[in-house]
């Protein structure tokens, strides 16, 4: 089977400093790939390269065989197939929850309003927030905002979802409500790439774990093996840093 996403020899620099070095990876339909690694290893940058938020110096990102390139003409079209959720949720503060969710389907995909609203409400229902639809982002907790951000990405019917440390800015008691939503999406068979620091969650949700260190993929493994008996010594050291 042809993979959904294929990354070939990706090279990324910031001001001459190499952040990602010859990174290659494929993701198949329905697969959940979790990316872990120490802070500053380049894992978030990697995710941002995948939907063209960052310019890349070398290599290729292919979605369904089509090149994702931040300067190409069809980037806006291609990007709609990729949903992304950020650490800082970034809901639009001047719009209600419902308006936040239906803005892109209406403006970008030109869908009609009733249809967008009804899908928005059923998605909100699913994450337990349909009663908040007319409130503004500032009236919601961090965990609630992040669940709305996930809904905002889902309504675009993306082929692949990217999660960039979606729980890193949350209070501990709110982490679970967000992770449960992500986990339920995984069970549904969605294709996802997740950058996270929550190791227990990574283990539970992943089909495959990718360990990045120093801008390179150091280890790719099944979650069982990675977390119990990693192949590389650097991965072992990384995992040890979570133990007291």
């Amino acid at each position, binding site marked *: 089977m042809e993979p959904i996403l294929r990354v070939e020899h990706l090279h990324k620099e910031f001001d001459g400093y190499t952040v990602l070095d010859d990174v290659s990876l494929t993701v198949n339909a329905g697969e959940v790939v979790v990316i872990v690694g120490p802070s500053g290893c380049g894992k978030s940058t990697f995710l941002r390269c995948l*939907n063209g*938020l960052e310019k890349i110096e070398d290599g290729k990102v292919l979605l369904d065989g089509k090149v994702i390139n931040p300067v190409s003409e069809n980037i*806006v*079209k291609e*990007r*709609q197939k*990729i*949903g*992304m959720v*950020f650490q*800082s949720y*970034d*809901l*639009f*503060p*001047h719009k209600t929850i419902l308006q936040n969710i239906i*803005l*892109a389907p209406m*403006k*970008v*995909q030109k869908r009609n309003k009733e249809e967008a609203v009804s899908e928005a409400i059923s998605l909100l229902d699913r994450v337990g927030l349909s009663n908040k639809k007319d409130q503004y*982002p*500032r009236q919601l907790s961090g965990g609630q905002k992040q669940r709305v*951000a996930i809904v*905002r*990405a889902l309504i*675009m019917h993306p082929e692949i979802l990217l999660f960039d440390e979606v729980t890193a800015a949350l209070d501990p008691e709110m982490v679970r409500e967000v992770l449960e939503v992500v986990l339920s999406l995984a069970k549904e068979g969605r294709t996802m790439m997740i950058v996270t620091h929550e190791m227990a969650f990574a283990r539970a949700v992943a089909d495959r774990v990718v360990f990045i260190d120093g801008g390179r993929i150091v280890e790719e493994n099944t979650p069982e093996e990675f977390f119990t008996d990693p192949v590389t010594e650097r991965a072992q050291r990384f995992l040890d840093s979570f133990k007291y």
Partner: protein
Amino acid sequence: MDFEAISSYFPLYVEAFFLTIKIGWIGIALSLGIGIAGAFVLHFKIPVFSAVIKAYVELFRNTPLLVQLFFIYFGLPKVGLAISAQNCGIIGLGLLGGSYMIEAIRSGLEAVPVSQTESAVALGFTRRQIFTNVILPQAVIGGMPAVMANIIFLLKETSVFSAISLMDLMFTAKDLIGLYYDTTECLVLLVLFYIVMLLPVSALGSFVEKKIRYGSYGV
């Protein structure tokens, strides 16, 4: 206090008041137009135009309106550009105000976090859609207190129009004091009319600022 004098001067002040308001608000409208256009040019870093706008802002923010008016009203006719006193007031106020409005609106635009643009990009919006649907509405709200402060500032600046013989409130007061020596009465009327002109705007400004600062808006 001589109330007879006050009631006889009153109609003159009313006339001057409306002239001041008219020129003031047309000038402010012009300054907002310049402000929006200029901020847009700077925000999108449009080459050449950006440099021109920057030079203009520096020049007009660092010189007094009175000097600008003298140059436009007395100086420009000597090189063949004669402008009526009224238009001169409007243009002067518009140019001065424009330089302040550009800064106010631009800072509103810049206050919108980059991550807002990024998440809109990730949702597939085009550049134009992001500007109109995401950046602009937030910038308008964020820049509002500064814009209101500029409006108050510009309304106050209208008080120098008398220097180019516009029959505004200042001119009327000065004229009447010179003619009849009813200094106290003339000054009281002057203050009253400026209060009527500025207090409502000032109150609106405070209201807007409170509303924005205390939570009716925010992430």
